[in-house]
């Protein structure tokens, strides 16, 4: 099976046996989101962000720019923080996707407990409008797990992919410091 890339016209080996049959119209895409298998019928051009928000109604991942500049769409793919707006949903088929809704169930179901990072964000008032917040939290937990939250200098650097226009930054750092040992 081969696919033709529009810009060069050169031919490439397909990525899987069905690649040529999948698209450009809607195809079935298997996703594993927050530990649950979710099948969606989407065009291959749909981003992970689009699939989460429009197909699965998981709107915790925010659309701030759709071009990889703000970090509001940060989720985890196989435990690594990624920008969902720059990731095609179809490339996540064999991966585990985690969104902020997977940290604690928003309807209070599950064990009803917030993640330590969520608790500290509330306690330290690490947000105002809240629009960047799910992305900040997913990034913050990632930052701690990666071992990049040793001190404020490190936190500043490794959290700089997430813009907070309300400028809650000093409080975001305080929340991360407080949650650091609890994550």
């Amino acid at each position, binding site marked *: 099976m081969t696919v033709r890339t529009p810009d060069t016209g050169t031919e490439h080996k397909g990525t899987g046996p069905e690649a040529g049959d999948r698209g450009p*119209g809607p195809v079935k895409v298997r996703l594993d989101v927050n530990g649950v298998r979710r099948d969606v019928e989407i*065009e291959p*051009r*749909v981003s992970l962000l*689009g699939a989460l*928000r*429009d197909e699965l*109604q*998981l*709107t*915790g*991942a*925010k*659309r*701030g*720019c*759709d*071009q990889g*500049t*703000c970090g*509001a769409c940060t989720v985890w793919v196989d435990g690594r923080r990624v920008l969902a707006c720059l990731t095609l949903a179809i490339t996540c088929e064999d991966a585990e996707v985690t*969104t*902020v*809704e997977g*940290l*604690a*169930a*928003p309807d209070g179901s599950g064990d009803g407990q*917030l993640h330590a990072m*969520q608790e500290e*964000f*509330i*306690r330290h*008032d690490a*947000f*105002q*409008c*809240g*629009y*960047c*917040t*799910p992305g900040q*939290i997913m990034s913050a937990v990632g930052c701690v797990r990666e071992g990049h939250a040793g001190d404020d200098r490190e*936190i*500043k*650097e490794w959290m*700089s*992919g*997430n*813009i*907070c*226009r*309300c*400028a*809650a*930054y*000093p*409080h*975001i*750092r305080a929340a991360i410091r407080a949650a650091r040992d609890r994550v």
Partner: protein
Amino acid sequence: MTTTAPAPAEGPVGRPLDRVDGHAKVTGAARYAAEVPLPGLTHAVLVGARVAHGRITAIDSTEAERAEGVLAVLTHENLGKIAAQPPLLPSLAGSVAPGETFFPMQGDEIHYAGQHVALVVADTYERALYASRLVRVSYAEEPSVTVIDQGRDQAYEPEAIFAGFIPGRTERGDVEAALGAADVTVDHTFTFAANHHNPIETSAATAYWEGDRLTLHDTTQGVTATQHTVAALLGVPHTRIRVIGHFTGGSFGSKAMVWHHPALAALAARKVGRPVRLALTREQMFVACGHREEQEQHLTLGAGKDGRLVALRHHKLSPTSPFDHWAEPSLGVAGQMYACPNYEGVYRLIRANTTTPTFMRCPGEATGLFALETAMDELAELVDLDPLELRLRNYSESDPASGRPWSSNGLRECLERGAERIGWERRAAPPARDGDWLIGLGMAATAYPVYGPNNPQRARARLYADGTAVVQAAVTDIGTGILTVMTQVAAEALGLPVERCRFEGGDTDLPNVAAAVGSSGAGMVSAAVHAAASALREQLVARAVADEGSPLHGADPAAIDVRDGRMVLRDAPGTGEDYAALLQRNFVPDVEATGSWGPPPHDAPFASMTFGAQFAEVAVDPVLGLVRVRRLAGAFAPGRVLNAKTARSQLMGGMIWGLSQALLEATHMEPATGRWANASLGEYLVPVNADAPDVDVDFIEVQDTVVNPLGVKGVGEVGQAGVAPAIANAIHHAIGRRMRKLPITIEDIVSGG
């Protein structure tokens, strides 16, 4: 003005309560306007004009219409006409709302690049986005004017700016003569790049019709403002339009005026007979919801040898749109900050091919105070005074513009507190050195007006027989924490613990309040909520004293306190009963009251302003041209603080905005094409975590008995003004050079040094 030590908070008001909507925001449960799930939802994408001036000669949407999933392509040829232009305020005060004087897709003229020329509706977002690129538009392009340098010779002096509210020229005394006689003068031109708000949530509206009734989920600073505007544009009565906005993902002024997309979403929904979601792209945020205009300010100070001001002349030149005489009021606060008998302020405008500029956090104060406060720093140097002492010497007990006394002040105390926090005594010494860095200190005074609404504000309070209360007003939380502070205000007035009180806003079905603009939200809504909750409490107490079955029967209502939902005799707290017991015994399911508050009349014998002081410590590498802000210390006197935590957050955010204004933010116009050259968050610089230092925020407590019942003056904006001049003055202290342009860039530090 009275200054007091911080009173220990007894009731809920003032306490640093966690945000009541915090849980929803950290879990992703909070749904913003473009996130409301609706059956049969469709998606709309706007197409913007590629030229800045001219006409559409042809528009071909056949290919877009044929694309998969497309339901409609709307252009000026098939959209239909709007019914009327919306007035600025429900009272019909002022003129048509700036920015709303023009509605796109009504004809073939193009007034600015990015002007909406088509709207594509499809069953998915991706299909709408794709099809939007298939709409072919041909233009007859005409020369455009988009920057000051292209239109200098066409500048005019408007009679009034700002929807007719502010005169184009203000004078007192004889500025010319006073400048001539002054011992010292400072005379400079200051330039400012255009800025864009860039909230992280882009503007969005979701619209659907049920018969002739429209529901709009809008991201806005005021659901009532959206309702009012869309009603006028569509010619649909208010009673058939419900606007909901529970969460707004930041605004900073971009969602204060109601721009074109909510009405377009409503029109598109009517056309396709399904719900329509219309969210702007990030790039569209640079053309579709206003900006802070590029500007030049020419400021001249005259003073005696003792540093006392005798004259202030302040002229501003800036581009406006083809439709409105807009300038942010940069001359206002700068002309009221200090005692100065002779004054002249003049706005001059240039007609340009852009959208109408609009409110952007500290609209005018942030730029006007930059000019004034850097000039004051220079004056201090000329008369050999400490900059702090110069401010104190020019301190004014009353408003120099109106002559009326300030309703409360606190500026002196703010200056002293900020100086203490930054260690201002170090300023007298030459700048310290830290490796390649020179360390400088700078300061500036700041102020922000206290605005009141033009109309009564209303709220409703209801107590259920289970002892819980819900209090409502149609206010929108744009990140200020207003839902939280109103819960506190309601709980305090009702004598209930906050956990038993719920505040609801964000819906035009609730009692009317004005949009949260100009740092006025907390003051005006707290007044209405306080009135409603107090009326409800009085009603309950009256019921108890009239009820033979109540232990309070026959008591004097004025002798009754309510604590934790229990009405008790103040002098015998053992005697009393719960609200809940009273209602349950009488089989009353709930009791309700409304409250309203009207602002003091405009001719009240007071002037009101929130004062503050900003101090900055910067490190400058003069060889590499780098500036790092090491510390900011701000002290503010915002009247009563309703929640110490959320107020601090707003002031802190404002101060970092000031840093951003000083060192980062600029939208660059490409004059040859009339298009913004850096319309993305990758190229329009805003602070990231690494740019934002820790900031000190201090409160100076002042009691204000005039502005509103709780004495709230507002914290949304005053935190920003004054930071940029404090930083510029600190840079001067470090390297001995004056910065008279914003933002201050590497080139400004290394060039000409």
